[in-house]
């Protein structure tokens, strides 16, 4: 008989081994799936994991794209992870991301066509403030009326999407766009363009912000009293209260920080890679970031790596579609497998496998 026995402490070794094991298992099962689809399995796996980094023809382009894709994921996931540590489940980062982008873009467009150097910083501040304000709605409702932040923040995503549709065909619509929805293209307006800082590296301000957020979160969680309070609230809420930690303050801090980072990420994306506020500019980063946060074990460095890994499967998956004519759905399945195996093998971090009947050990 096989059975699981809880470890006294999470295993350090398994924490490191499980992600690698999960990737390995995904390759095997994914490979079988590709073979069943009549595609060369080894070739497909090589295209997904190797070619974006080292293919002589694409890598020069796709390597920087990894940063472009991972940047917003990491930035949002960092904010979410801090809340998750405290047991505050903000599922609505997508909405905070959208509202941040709208507020930031709106502030910028109000000054069009000024070429002042202050435009972009003002937009970033407005974007972060917009995301923060959107996250304050579930925070206030939770602390004042005891509503569930999971539901409120999630529902506000749909509200945000409708606001986005409305402003992209109304308030922020490009007046020179011949009646088509969508804002002006920020790539054609230097003062507001979140351009690459060094050409062909993919490094834009959003990626820089993501790296700073990783370092900041690490400092906060391991060196600062606030980080300690957050962890305490998550692990032992009663003890935290006895220690004088205000739950209300923690809720405001965690939701506010997550909204701030998500809003900034939205603004960086809208003025950089996306270039425009349109009804479809948000690509689900706010939801994918939840996965990234857990894939990275809610640890800043883990999130950094998880964000890059997610980006790799996206870009590698696109290449596989292109080069091997793999159906798009099979790539999504492949990504799903990765998460499934990660969560499945995660069991071994907290439990150990035992053979034989209980009591005989």
């Amino acid at each position, binding site marked *: 008989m096989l059975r699981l026995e809880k470890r006294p402490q999470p295993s350090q070794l398994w924490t490191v081994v499980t992600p690698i094991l999960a990737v390995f298992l995904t390759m095997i099962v994914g490979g079988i799936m590709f073979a069943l689809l009549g595609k060369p399995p080894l070739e497909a796996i090589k295209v997904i994991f190797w070619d974006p980094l080292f293919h002589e*023809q*694409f890598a*020069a*382009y*796709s390597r920087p*794209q990894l940063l*472009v*894709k991972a940047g917003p994921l990491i930035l949002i996931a960092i904010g979410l992870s801090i809340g998750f540590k405290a047991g505050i489940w903000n599922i609505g980062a997508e909405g905070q991301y959208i509202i941040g982008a709208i507020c930031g873009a709106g502030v910028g467009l109000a000054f069009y066509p000024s070429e002042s150097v202050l435009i972009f910083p003002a937009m970033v501040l407005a974007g972060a403030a917009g995301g923060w304000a959107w996250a304050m709605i579930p925070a206030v409702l939770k602390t004042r009326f005891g509503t569930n932040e999971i539901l409120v923040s999630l529902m506000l995503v749909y509200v945000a999407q409708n606001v986005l*549709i*409305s402003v992209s*065909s*109304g308030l922020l*619509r490009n007046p020179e766009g*011949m*009646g*088509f*929805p*969508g804002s002006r*293209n920020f*790539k054609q307006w230097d003062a507001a363009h979140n351009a690459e800082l*060094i*050409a*062909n*590296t993919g490094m834009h301000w959003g990626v820089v912000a993501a790296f700073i957020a990783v370092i900041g979160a690490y400092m906060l969680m391991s060196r600062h009293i606030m980080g300690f309070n957050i962890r305490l609230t998550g692990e032992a809420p009663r003890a935290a209260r006895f220690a004088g930690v205000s739950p209300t303050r923690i809720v405001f801090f965690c939701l506010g920080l997550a909204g701030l980072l998500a809003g900034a990420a939205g603004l960086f*994306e809208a003025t*950089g*890679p*996306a*270039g*425009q506020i*349109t*009804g*479809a*500019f*948000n*690509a689900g980063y706010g939801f994918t970031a939840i996965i990234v946060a857990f894939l990275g074990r809610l640890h800043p460095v883990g999130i950094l790596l998880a964000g890059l890994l997610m980006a790799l499967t996206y*870009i590698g998956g*696109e*290449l596989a*579609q*292109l*080069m091997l*004519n793999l*159906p*798009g*759905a099979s790539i999504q399945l492949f990504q799903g497998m990765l998460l499934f195996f990660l969560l499945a093998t995660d069991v071994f971090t907290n439990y150990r496998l035992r053979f034989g009947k209980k009591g005989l050990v």
Partner: protein
Amino acid sequence: MNRRTLLTTAALALTLGTTAFAQDEEITAGFIYIGPPGDGGWTYEHDQARQKMEAHFDGKVKTIYQENVPESADAERAITQMALTGADIIFTTSFGYMDPTLAVAEKFPDVKFEHATGYKRSDNVSTYSARFYEGRAVQGHIAGKMTKTNKIGYIASVPIPEVIRGINSAYIHAKKVNPDVEFSIIWLYTWFDPAKEADAARALIENGADVVLQHTDSTAPQAAAQEAGNVITFGQASDMAEYAPMPRVSSIIDDWAPYYIARVQAVLDGTWESTDTWDGIGKGMVGIGEISDAVPADVKAEALAMKDAIASGEYHPFTGPLKKQDGSDWLAEGEVADDGTLAGMNFYLEGITAEIPN
């Protein structure tokens, strides 16, 4: 310029070099799709045309495609990667790819780009679209004749001129044969979302609509209408013949194959130039699917006569007298709409009670 930039520029130049070289033996045509080819509508027809084009050139042209590309920052990457794989001509088949297509085209001056339904062009970016509103006129005629409740539901996608033109065209032709007709319009803000499309169709039917027109890509509204019974629909972008004879009584079919063949031929011949193509029933880019037996013979004959008149250029669907929704004059008696106004059409015509969302 630092060393890394220099190296990547060199690498890029090298790639462009190989692209040009590959032209001697075989060319590659790439397609970017908004949905999956299995949507049974818009993307399906683009993919059918891709296959017909590939068959036509019999091994001389290789085709590649990427499906489900969102109209976000991902589009620019997908198009760039396609250009990097050595595609010589790339068709981007949704409106939202407009700015990404132009951005990529600037980086790959030797690659030809073809953007469907947009209005921005450059030296290596052409645009192409079909005069779907011609099909909508025929559709509106049949719908106006067939409705018993006088309520026609319209599932609209994204509020761009193409969609608004379709609504106007269907409306004035339904109104002409049935003055009591009313249009209910639901905007979905997406081109392809079977669940939302089905919900919209059900909501319209519950409100008494017995004709459901759609400007979205999937067959979900057809299925919803079939379930409800006694509701008629029209195939959109594709024939959707599996729902004939009821609920689907006819369809507007996009036929892109002749255009794709002509454009790829131009690349092969080295005669490709940036153009703006807008063809309709006459040139065969818009087809009217088989009108089923559910439609009375006289209505069918009238619809076919209208189709022929449009094809020959004898009749223009937007012929005056027509007024805008606010009551102001648009076209005088006998005057026909000019392409410029149609291309940017952002107003409803008189009688439509809804408002264009903004």
